[in-house]
């Protein structure tokens, strides 16, 4: 393995899970997410020499987000739309909860994931970048190519939409 590749792997591979998580939430499809991450990692591999002192993770998140946009544009041209896959609960493990609470929490989880999955793309991307990837407003603005003010208002709208859809259903806040 070349030095070049070793350096890239040391830099980028620690963020592979984050890249996949973002692609998975944006595309809502496991197979698309894999394609997007592979594409993004190859782009990053070709471009990482020009990275000068920037944080690797936001840079990689930007590339993933752009690859997702490209992938979505291609699908649109081909005339098929990705449907949100049925949110699955299999990977959630509950510890020490009785059966009834478990069912309630599983249904909470499904509702929340469905609410996120059906947010408009512009809202979903800022929400995921903020809440799951913990990017700053500045980094999110870089990633989505929008002014910081726009990021702030999209984030507020995303939260308001989820509050109405999810929190309003019953009082999750109190559990």
């Amino acid at each position, binding site marked *: 393995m070349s030095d070049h590749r070793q350096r890239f792997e040391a830099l980028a591979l620690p963020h592979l899970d984050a890249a996949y998580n973002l692609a998975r939430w944006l595309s809502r499809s496991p197979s698309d997410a894999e394609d997007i991450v592979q594409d993004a990692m190859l782009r990053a591999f070709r471009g990482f020499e020009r990275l000068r002192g920037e944080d690797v993770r936001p840079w990689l998140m930007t590339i993933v987000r752009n690859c997702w946009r490209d992938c979505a544009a291609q699908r649109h041209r081909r005339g098929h739309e990705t449907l949100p896959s049925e949110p699955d609960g299999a990977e959630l493990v509950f510890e020490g909860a009785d059966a009834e609470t478990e069912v309630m929490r599983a249904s909470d989880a499904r509702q929340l994931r469905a609410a996120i999955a059906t947010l408009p793309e512009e809202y979903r991307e800022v929400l995921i970048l903020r809440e799951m990837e913990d990017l700053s407003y500045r980094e999110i603005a870089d*990633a989505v190519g929008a002014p910081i003010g726009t990021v702030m208002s999209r984030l*507020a709208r995303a939260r308001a939409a989820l509050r109405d859809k999810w929190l309003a259903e019953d009082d999750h806040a109190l559990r």
Partner: protein
Amino acid sequence: MPCAETLHTQAFIDGELTGREAEIAEAHIAGCADCQAFCAAAAALSDGIRRHAPRYAAPDRLKARLDRALAKAEGRPTRTRASPGARGAFWRGAVGGALGGVGLGGLAAALAVLAVMPPSPASLADRVVGAHTRALISGKVIEVASNDHHTVKPWFAGRIDLSPPVADFAQQGFKLTGGRLDKAANAPAAVVVYRHGLHEIDLFVWSDHGGRLPGSATRLGYHAIFWKKGDLDFAAVSDMEPGELATFSNLVRGQAE
């Protein structure tokens, strides 16, 4: 939309405001029912996402695929330099877009200025106390919950390029409860979280960039103690008695690496 200050309030709970900006936002929230409701809903949502929305991990299949794809790309190094303009352009474009936006609002401009100024010792105290209280308000104190330093310490690996000392001082009354990533002095910081009775203690650790530290400081009823060790800067922040906080920081300073 209820209150005209909602976006400021949101910036505050997202940890985007420091110093005077943060104080103004905090004072507003204290007197605005709409913004208090906004904070509560945002915190419940944040908490819900952490509990119910999974972070998907890259499947092994993808890792194998990627390994093959990189090996293939590596075999053709000339392509690397074939289109530097196009590759560089989207990143510059993204940065340009963001900078363009900074001119739009006073708040955004203030954020940009704050982000590039090296913090003075006094504002550093504001920042770590601000980060500590924001974590408490937003319920994001802990990203990895464990009282085992063998779990907490490796959690930071790959997330931040420094390795904070992590030890449990339960015997001395300071119980290790977990860790998170945060910011201090414009730099990413590892935060090791401890508990003493009902008090939360945040131990911020970040790379020393030569900045001066305040020693100790009190802000909004929270106490902070700062010190340097090796090439790392430390700040212990809590609302417990200054004497107890000093005991805690002495324990951390004295621990074997």
